[in-house]
């Protein structure tokens, strides 16, 4: 029983869902597009900039130039290991042209 905390500590290499958001889903099927951006590794909780978040919008726009994007499902996860973690944002949607 005494070893249990140690075993649990080793198992922490997990991902936790932080938030989910969605926009209305269109009738047209369109083209499926998706982008995934990740933060730099965060060591001991000391984080750098958050500029990687802007890449989500830029990348989605690039994949659907001249169209409109609807039905966007966005998830924000934190993946953590002992002393180190990172954030991951995944956004997928339909490009309607």
């Amino acid at each position, binding site marked *: *029983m*005494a070893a249990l905390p140690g075993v*649990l500590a080793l*198992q*922490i*290499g*997990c*991902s936790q*869902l932080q*938030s*989910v*958001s*969605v*926009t*209305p*889903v*269109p*009738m047209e099927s369109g083209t499926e597009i998706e982008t995934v951006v990740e933060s730099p590794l965060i060591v001991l909780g000391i984080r750098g900039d958050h500029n990687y978040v802007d890449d989500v919008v830029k990348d989605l726009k690039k994949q659907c130039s001249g169209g*409109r994007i609807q*039905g966007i*499902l966005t*998830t924000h*996860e934190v*993946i953590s290991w002992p002393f180190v973690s990172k954030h*991951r944002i*995944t956004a997928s949607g339909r490009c309607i042209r």
Partner: protein
Amino acid sequence: MRRWLPLLALCGACTSSIHQVQVSDFTPYAPKGNARMVEGFAEERVILFSTESGGEVRRAFEKLQQECGLGYITAITVETRTRLGFFNWTNEARFRGLCVVPETPIPGPEDPVEGEGEDAGESPEGTAPPAE
């Protein structure tokens, strides 16, 4: 330490926490008469932290879209929650939305507004109207 075990056992399988609820917008607006509620639900059991990241969310969203075949879905509510057990837990994702099947096609941003171009006479470049 032995004292804590019964307490932990009591806490297991009887706890549930809701993490987040989000509601999307209600556009385009449509009367409720044309609409019906659809739902997509998925769950994933996690044992000792081992999990596929966000798998239940994607599956629930796919189910929601399958429930509404030829319509569009608006006013979508997203709910994520966790049911706790003894050394395991279950992540749940539930999407609810209003599936609207319009009687007439919704004009897109590039489609001409009704009434415009009626006085133009013939169709441009001599194209024939679509055959019925």
